[in-house]
């Protein structure tokens, strides 16, 4: 019997306890056009849906061990809003691993990555902790070789397999206690982390300045002798050395100051007798209209038996 599939996904039942079963859905990963990187080699990558929220890399490795050696597990966020990182310093640590030139070109503003010798950020000491993700998350599992994938899909998945937690990461009460403690690292670690992080920032800043055409505080004169004039921004973002010449309002809206504008000629509203009469009449009508409105409102309340005091 072929394993139950749904929408092309193979259902992998996993029993948590005797009474509750979780289902992971698996499919071979196919590289779509949108795939940002080649980190998931098609052919030996499996795409998982509905991974348990507290699953760790080790847990999944344990789960797929019978089919072959797992090279890598990547968790994806289920929604756009969601986090992508386990701990907040991961982007610094991760930077070291991803090859640089490609990445930097892909997203130049997002993270300051163009650097020659970036100072290394001292990571905050994080013990290996489970990361609780959003439920129903996705994951990619990369096997070492493609035969494991075939072996997996040809296997029967009708019998639930027990979900075994890797013992390295604490779970339950111990997890929360460990989490609490890990959020309060020793002070010197914090200092080192903050200092190195700032060094990195300074480095990035300096680098971006170097690359920038404009240097702060220097007037830029082109070969024709014209000086570039820009608006001075606040704090450090000013480029170039000019002074501002136009108002903010003009730059934003393209409108000149109000001085030159002609005021619209005011129409006299109660000059002619007929205007007065009309006004009076309209006032009366308005009065009546409001009265009718009020009446309707009270009628509505009346209909809901609002006016029975007791």
């Amino acid at each position, binding site marked *: 019997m072929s394993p139950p599939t749904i929408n092309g996904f193979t259902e992998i039942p996993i029993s948590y306890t005797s009474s509750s079963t979780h289902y992971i859905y698996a499919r071979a990963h196919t590289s779509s056009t949108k795939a940002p990187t080649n980190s998931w080699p098609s052919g030996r990558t499996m795409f998982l849906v509905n991974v348990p929220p507290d699953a760790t890399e080790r847990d999944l490795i344990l789960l797929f061990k019978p089919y072959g050696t797992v090279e890598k597990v990547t968790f994806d966020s*289920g929604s756009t809003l969601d986090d992508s990182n386990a701990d907040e310093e991961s982007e610094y640590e991760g930077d070291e691993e991803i090859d640089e030139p490609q990445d930097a070109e892909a997203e130049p503003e997002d993270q300051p990555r163009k650097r020659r010798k970036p100072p290394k950020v001292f990571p905050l000491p994080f013990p290996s902790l489970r990361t609780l993700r959003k439920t129903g998350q996705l994951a990619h599992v990369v096997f070492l070789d493609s035969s494991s994938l075939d072996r997996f899909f040809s296997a029967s998945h009708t019998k639930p397999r027990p979900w075994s937690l890797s013992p390295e990461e604490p779970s339950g009460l111990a997890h929360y206690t460990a989490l609490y403690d890990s959020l309060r690292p020793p002070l010197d670690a914090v200092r080192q982390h903050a200092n190195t992080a700032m060094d990195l920032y300074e480095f990035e800043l300096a680098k971006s300045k170097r690359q920038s055409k404009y240097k702060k505080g220097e007037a830029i004169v082109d070969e024709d002798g014209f000086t570039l004039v820009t*608006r001075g921004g606040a704090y450090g973002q000013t480029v170039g050395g000019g002074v501002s010449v136009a108002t903010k309002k003009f730059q934003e809206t393209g409108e000149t100051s109000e001085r030159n504008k002609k005021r619209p000629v005011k129409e006299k509203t109660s000059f002619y007798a007929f205007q007065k009469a009309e006004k009076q009449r309209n006032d009366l009508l308005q009065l009546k209209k409001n009265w009718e409105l*009020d009446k309707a409102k009270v009628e509505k309340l009346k209909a809901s038996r609002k006016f029975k005091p007791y």
Partner: protein
Amino acid sequence: MTAELKRKRGESSTSRKLRKVSPAVNEDPTPFVVSEAESDAENDGGVGLDEEEWQGVAQEEHSSVKKSTKPTGEEIRAIKDASNLFRSSTFKLQIDALLPNVQPKSKRKPPLERFLLSLHTHLSRLPDIPAKHPLEAARGLLKNGVSVPYSAPLPTEDTQWKVAFSKPSDITLVGSWANKTSVKGHDGTTYGVDLAVEMPSSIFQEKDYLNGRFFHKKAFYLATIAAAIANPKSGLNVNVSYLSTNDDPRLTKLVLEPKLDGSQTDFTKLNARVYIIPTLSPQSPLSLHRLSPAHANIRVASEGDSDDSSKLPSPLYNTALLTSLTPKSYLLSIHAIQQNVPAFNDALSLIRVWANQRGYGESGAGGVSVRGFDSKGPWWTALLVLLILGEEPTSAGKGLGKAKRKPLGRGLSSYQLFRAVLDFLAKHDFENEATFVKADEGHRYTPDEYQSNHEVVFVESSSTVNLLAGVPLGSMKLLSGDAQKTLEILNSSTNGSVTVDPFPEVFLQDHRDLQTRFDAVVHVDLSTVKSRKPNIHLTLDSGSASNAVLNSLSSMLCQGLGNRIKSLAILHPSSSPRLLSQAHPSTSHTIHIGLVYNTEHAFRQVDHGPPATETDTTVIERFRDFWGDKAELRRFKDGSIVESVVWDVQTIDEKAHVPTRILKHILQRHFNISGEAVHTWQTSFDGLVRLPESVSRYYVGSGLSMGTKGALGAFDGLVKAIKALSNDENLLPLSVMNISAASDSLRYTSVFSPVPLPSSIASVLPSNARYVYPIDFVIEFEKSASWPDDLKAIQKVKLAFLERIAMGLMKNDPALKAGVVVGNGLADSDILDVARLEVVNAEGWAFSGRVWHDREATLLDRIINNTSGLPHVAAKKSKEARQGKEYHDAIRARESYTRLFVHSPQHHRAIAKLCHQFPAFAGSVRLAKRWFASHWLLRGHISEEVIELLCAQFFVSDGWDVEVDDERDALNRTAVPGSKERGFASLIRFLKEWKWENGLFVPLYGSSALVSKQPKAVTAASTGVWRVQTRMDEEGAIWTMHGPDAVVARRVQALAQATWKCLQDMETSGKGSVMSIFDHPTEDYNVVIKLNPTVIPRYHQNVVLDESNLSKYHKNDANSLARPGFDLLNICTRICRCHTYQDTFRIFHDYFGGDRFGIVWDPSLKEPRPFRVIGAFSFCSSAESREPESATKKGKDKDMVVLNDQGVLGEIERLGRGIVSGIIVQI
């Protein structure tokens, strides 16, 4: 050319004429143009049609089409009147809608009229009964099952005078029914049709005013009529019973209620009762000059009394007698006024409805009403008459020299008259000023006579009766306060941007509940009452023993409480009809005493009496006699030696009990009512916001400074220490500008009085009682340009700053522990402010500080609005940018920034100020928070701040913070709760009725507050439905951003309704436990998850604490020591709610040490839905739960998925290993 010109003018002139003649409506001139063209065409034909005629036709057409839009002169007048003479035209319309509902329906009247006619003939045909000895006569009637309601002093065998009956000399319909001023009563009480039966003068003698002889004769007369009507042969198919006004047997009348038989005279549908009131003819031989309030007319020499007692005036007795003379004269005088004042009836109806809604009137079964207002119909009428006719100038009296009231205009509208009455009630000093309605011939008795014998004096013009005789002063003060409250509501029509319609509040809402009205409600069982000094004369004067007790009780309590209270009211069920066989009214044994505190004085601990040097020994005697063993001679700091009463107070809670303690003391001393018979709920409410004794006992002896005061002291110390650090340039590059607190522990509103956790105590406490709540504060550094201009870097700099501070603090004070918290446990974006400084000082107080850097807001706004720092680079509003992670992170960060750094400190300051100004505020908030928490809503769904705001609405009014003169101040404070119980009850009542769509405006920040002109931040879509606006927060969403959503809001309403009912039941029955309103019903949850109480760090704060769980694991578990703010349950539930299972279920739990939490699945997940890769919930194929028939449609169902609830529960069990002790699936 000229022709053309002319034509033009002609055209315009016609059109103008047209407009004049038919002042039509349409601004659009096309109709005229068209008609012009038509008429032109006809003119061209040379027909010479008469323009006027044509217009006439047009006008007719016009009016038929747009009839409704063209106001006639009459209509305009009506509309103008409505808005000028009434509060607003809506108000007028509402009044018009209300009035028919409280007046008897005229189409139901004919049966009554037929009945009255037959009653009249029956009464006039009654045979005479010759004079008999009263007891003998009574025995005769008793055979027919009718006992004679003789009043005390009862006739004896040796009385010399005789009772007789002869047919009434006159039968008149009197009172409100005759004047058509009847107003429906509360609780379905009936309309009263008063029938005055005038007893013939022949049966009375001149001396009958003495010793109740008149009342005996009257009683016999009434009993005879009763027997005659009750007799089946009479043909009047009615139930007959006695009814004694105010339970005074002297004021007994007959009540005739129709039996439902569908006959011609059956007026059941009218919902009315006929009262037969025997009256005295003005020509009777009784001499009126003997009946002034100062005359002594009860001359029963009681044993042991001196002659003096027989000379004591009998004001109530005299009033009761005079009342028999009044009905007809009222009828005439009211009728005369009605002719002159068109709005009289409507105004009277409004007043009566207003009064009924506040319990000044008869109550139905089970209800209570304010003492003294039983059958006070004539008084309400007289009140209006007073305003219309003006006040009689009295030369005597304490109100001398004050300009007397001028009569009001007769053309006033009903609303204006109503307001005038309220104004009179609110401003009149009933205690000191007697009121005499202007009478043509002046008043018969002098004001002095009234004033020295009655507590409150209000004398009507057509009679000599003090209409307020026997009404306790406290009741009048309560009425006064209610009038003030109503005037305030009417005056403040608009509150901020939320417009409030005052009409429902004034007329439609029932305000009779005790809890929101009184600061303390005391339930007293009178069955054991025994006056210390029984006063026979008072008993005789009051008509019955119970009336005498209540009268003296009220005045004694007022005397004892003095200026501690604004008013004191005795509430009890109003008198009810009794069987004819029962001669005397039975009085209920339980009464409620309601106190309204004067918060300035209420909790004073010392009462001063006369100084020891007082020469008049009787003054000291009296003081000692009044207070008993509580009175003692004390020497005070200023050297004076004064008789005084001191109320010892141990805790803050006890201080709030001083007024009720005084009350209990007086009841015990003077009325022999023991402590068990007096019941209040205060103590049980106190217990809800206190730590259990097994925990608090460690603190009592420790000598630590605790509570908010201790917290404030510790905080000040920390502020000083941090500021001292900034002096050292090397340590902190920027100096600390400001440190502002933002924690309820520092503003008196934390549910539990904050306590530190020093290691000495922590080591002895069980591990599940070692929770210490960190106190939040915000550090603001001086502005500097050296901050990085990048959000991520700013967070790092914050870490560096906090690290420096922590190091510095620890260096300066080795006993202090400081650390830096680098995250909040949830994987968050790196631009969110999460870095915190955590400090635990030597005493064990924990603090948690954040750094405020205002540049963050600008940077975040740039991301949100997608503008760069350079404005000349045009902003590109692309849709894609709005969906990126960066954008969403920025939205979240901005929102948390606004809340943490802008609103939180501001809110803190305002609330702290409020707590200083209003002593009951903090207590109300604490109870309210406890209530929300115990119903599993606090924090998770409802923020603490919004609860503070909701409670604040009962205390603040516009401009509360502005210094005002005393009078205004006093006026402002009438509606302000004076005890936490009342504040809490007010909140529950509010929640029960709140339509949150309309929002709420709380003038917390006073009128003087500067509104910060902050650019409106773009915020994430709010899930909360409540809108609580303040001047600082026009949106009203800052504290309700994350809930309650519509489901939870409805649940709050349901819970409030249940709680309110519970409170009411408790109050009326005097039984029940406060705990029942804090007991959370769990049956509505899909799953309830039980937790192991021994591991929950704040289990000791649980509402229903199991002490045995506290004692377990008492061993020193170093692991859980010193983890300030480690709140396991809150961490778990926050992870579940905000993160992991955000879209799967809603989680509910008790913030204060709850040992269970509840889950409600998102119902939409139970429906099979197509398989999607991004499901955001744990699902399984719906085929799993396949039913037999669906197997056939497998192809269709195959790709459908449903929530895998068992799987999720399995996950929860795993995630909560060590904490979760059981999962109960309920639905």
